[in-house]
């Protein structure tokens, strides 16, 4: 293995970088690191193990993400990587990076509001339009094209848009 000559921390860095570049198949501007789905990378004598956490219980993108991580690590020189799913602590949109939020907005999806708390779940939501920035918006549908999105409309610029649900 080419990696044998490298030190442990270099190996860890290489494995993390490879896994962290994997993107969400539904929202290809976000990496799994931006999303907070990538939790941990462990390099041991036997190989590499990656811990990821699912966003929604039934999110079909998780199977694809698992496969993509395996491929990315194999391409980086790690044979037979192990992918482990951890449920606890449960994923929350609070783990999404600032950079990820910016990328989402530029892509045309309103990023989740901070503090994925119970109160926010039942409280009045103020979501800014990712196109024009107006907060004069309305909810069209609590559910959207994927588990993580709701459908909104801007009353200022009239554009419909996806909102990444606070979770």
């Amino acid at each position, binding site marked *: 293995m080419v990696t044998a000559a490298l030190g442990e921390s270099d190996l860890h860095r290489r494995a993390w970088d490879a896994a962290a570049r994997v993107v969400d198949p539904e929202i290809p501007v976000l990496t799994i690191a931006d999303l907070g789905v990538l939790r941990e990378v462990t390099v041991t004598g036997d190989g590499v193990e990656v811990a990821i956490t*699912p966003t*929604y219980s039934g999110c079909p993108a998780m199977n694809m993400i698992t496969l993509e991580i395996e491929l990315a690590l194999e391409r980086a020189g790690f044979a037979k990587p192990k992918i482990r799913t951890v449920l606890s602590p449960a994923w929350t949109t609070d783990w999404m990076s600032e950079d990820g939020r910016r990328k989402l907005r530029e892509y045309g999806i309103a990023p989740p509001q901070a503090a994925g708390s119970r109160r926010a*779940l039942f409280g009045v939501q103020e979501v800014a339009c990712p196109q024009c920035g107006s907060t004069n918006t309305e909810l069209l*549908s*609590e559910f959207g094209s994927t588990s993580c999105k709701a459908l909104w409309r801007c009353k200022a610029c009239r554009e419909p848009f996806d909102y990444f649900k606070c979770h």
Partner: protein
Amino acid sequence: MSAPSIKVQETPLVLYVLRRADDALILGHRLSEWCGHAPMLEEDMALANIALDLLGQARELYAYAAKVEGKGNDEDKFAYLRDVRQYRNLLLAEQPNGDFARTMVRQFFYSAFADLYWRATMKSADATLAAIAAKSEKESAYHLRHSSEWIVRLGDGTEESHARTQAAIDEFWAFTGEMFAVDDSERGLIEAGVAFDPAGLKQQWLKTVTSVIAEATLILPKNDWMQQGGRAGRHSEHLGHLLSELQSLQRSFPGATW
């Protein structure tokens, strides 16, 4: 050739987990029957999304039941290769969709319970159950908000929507008691802090249900006779029909993959 049913060694914990997994699978399957048939596009997406959340919860629970049982069963075998009498879901979950009002009332009664149930289960002494609960509780809260809004809109809507929603409430009411029932197999788990007595959730559930139903100008039935049996495998005739569709591929072509 038809695939035979599996045998399940139902220790109290395996049974407990299977009961919750079956609730999620069967209700999720019912909701998936709406796909392409919902009254509007937004609701088509909503029902499919809720079904997906429930299916995800079912998979986590089945995987855990398989691990606890340790007899080589897995999530697919639990779903596809158990006969109707081996299913342990609430009778409420298997009731046919009927019209949209019936589907929403069934969902509302269940989600109002699931929201409280998962929140309480986050404190379970069983780390896996607590972790599954922490994910499911957020999803259930969202489902509850969705169905509550529909109950108000339908009840306080037209004469027709009011009448249909009231009829659904009257019919499904007798299935709500099963959610709060406990049998001997669960008492040890309750003592160990793995499970808890759901009777303690009843008042809070009633409070939520009563306030939404009042806002919807609907009324709760006065009778408190409750139908039970699902937890012990005694189901309504509807579950067998549901399973014949859900299981047909794996029963006809055992082990088929694609």
